[in-house]
């Protein structure tokens, strides 16, 4: 079916996607809107830097990360307050200069609450980004495509995945050529990745 296309990966393995390279972010965004108009939904864009408007064109939802960080921060506030108040008021009240230890002395507990909130918030932000972004991952079918694996920073890449219900290698390849894509390639999976 895709015999006229350059092939990468192992021919005997199933087709993973049809990949294409664009020279400019405008072309990539144009291609995405066309793909959406044609009814494709399983595709992915790869850019060397965040391209404004791409996520909107792809209709990607807003990142959930801010909620994760809010959750992490609120958890930290609870942890910090209980960590400070339980020993100070119940288990081991350490009276210094006759100063109070209960809630009326709340300001003295604030610095640790702030420090812990920032720390757990940051940990939530980074682990959240890693997990939501589908990482960590040691290998990826896209790496079978040498052009992408070696030079992803030199272009704006698009891969239409074979899992798409409208997928037909020949049609996708033709559409991508029409949209001005270069290096349209059939990406098969590599043997090791099986």
């Amino acid at each position, binding site marked *: 079916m895709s015999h006229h296309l350059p092939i990468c990966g192992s021919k005997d393995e199933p087709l993973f996607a049809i990949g294409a390279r664009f020279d400019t972010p405008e072309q990539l965004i144009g291609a995405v809107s066309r793909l959406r108009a044609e009814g494709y939904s399983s595709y992915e864009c790869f*850019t060397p830097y965040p391209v404004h408007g791409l996520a909107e064109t792809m209709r990607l939802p807003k990142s959930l990360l801010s909620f994760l960080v809010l959750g992490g921060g609120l958890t930290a506030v609870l942890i910090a307050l209980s960590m400070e108040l339980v020993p100070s008021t119940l288990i081991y009240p350490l009276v210094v200069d006759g100063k109070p230890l209960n809630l009326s002395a709340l300001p003295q*507990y604030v610095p640790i609450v702030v420090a812990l909130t920032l720390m757990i918030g*940051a940990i939530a*932000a980074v682990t959240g*980004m890693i997990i939501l972004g589908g990482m960590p991952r040691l290998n990826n079918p896209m790496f079978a495509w040498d052009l992408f694996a070696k030079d992803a920073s030199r272009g704006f890449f698009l891969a239409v995945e074979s899992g798409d219900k409208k997928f037909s290698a020949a049609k996708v390849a033709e559409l991508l050529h029409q949209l001005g894509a270069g290096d349209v390639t059939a990406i098969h999976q590599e043997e090791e990745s099986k």
Partner: protein
Amino acid sequence: MSATTSNEPAQPDLSAIARPPQVLNNRGPLWVTDAVCSIVEGKTPLWWLAAISVSGTFAAIGGACILYMIVTGVGVWGSNSPCFWAWDITNFIFWVSMAHAGSLISALLFLTRQKWSISISRAAEAMTVFAIICAGVYPAIHIGRVWFVWFLFPVPNSYGMWPNFSSPLLWDVFAVTSYLTVSSLFWFAGMIPDLAVLRDRATTKIRKFAYGLVSLGWLGTARQWRHFEMMYVLLAGLTSVLVVTVTTIVASDCATSVVPGWHATIFPFYFMVGAVYSGSAAILTLLIPLRLVYPQLKELITPSQLDKVCKLLLMMGSCVAYVYVFELFNAWYSANPFERGAFWERFTSSSSWYAITCLSINLTIPQLFWFSAVRRCLPLVVVLAILCNVGMWFERFMIVTTTLTRDFLPSSWGNFHPTIVDILTATGTLGIFFTLFLLFIRFVPIINMSELKAALPGSQPHAGLGRSTGEGH
């Protein structure tokens, strides 16, 4: 598809605002990638090997001194009654303060969309992380019996003991731990896309594996960038808070005591402006020589960006000068004989040269940066910036020791004299700092490539047509 009508939509806007270019000579994104990666990919230069052997030796000697101190006791330091804090806390404050300019540049200036800071932010963050590591050496070892360091953390234990949560010294533990964690995460997470570029370009198996491991399988998909940009804004927000809180808490170590000369509400502000001042000086000290050894950086780290760091130094240096004057005024105006006495002793006792060195540097050197001729002469800037940090070190030293050696009981007054172990431990932290910074130069991209490329003119579609995403930059 209307995007294809014009290839340079950003040009008219930029010329109207007339901002200095981000990268000189109209270099494009591909040149930026090559220029930054070539530093990591090129052959190890001889100067690097020479520099790291020197800094590594100092670090090793410092480590040996720390070991010697641990097995012998804090008596090997010059600290003695009533000056129980001396070079340990001086150096702790010096290093943790220096870190702050890095956070300010990478986080606060990112949030306020000061794009000029993009090129220097990665190196500034690295400086932050390494300076906190150097600072972290001291609090752990200065307690004397290091094996009891876990007392600092509120862990349930068989003694049934808990730390004093109303003590700023305990707040310090949390502030510094949190500062190190957050700035390391900010630094590392921001680097993931750039590490992936190094992975893609790697030519040897070991490099490919190592960079592949640390870049966590980053591909730069639209989804990944979506979460990444959100994370970057959130981390910048969290880090910006740290710029203010950490020095405030460190300053509280001194300010909440009743010692004259320390017991002042201006201390948090005092420490914070001093921190950004000394950190700006450190950034200039590190980056200007780096441009010499890697000429491609001259186009990436432009004179106009360095000029802005000089102005930051001038502003913070002027704030420091204001605090010095205000502190003296306040001591006089308080009419408190002990407060007045503390400052009188600071300038008239036999250790007055600390205060005189500190004031003569910090009141004059930053003021030279009013002149654009000075800011443009980069070799002079390096010399002045080093002097600023010498001045700041003497400031920390003056605050800690001249105050403690003149306590309430004149019979116990004396002077602090550092021992050889004090000196070699201090130079050891310098060695640790420079060793880490040299490793940083050699093994990771020292400029935030992805952020820089995204900010280059013409790199964004529809630029200038009011179609920004809101959460990007």
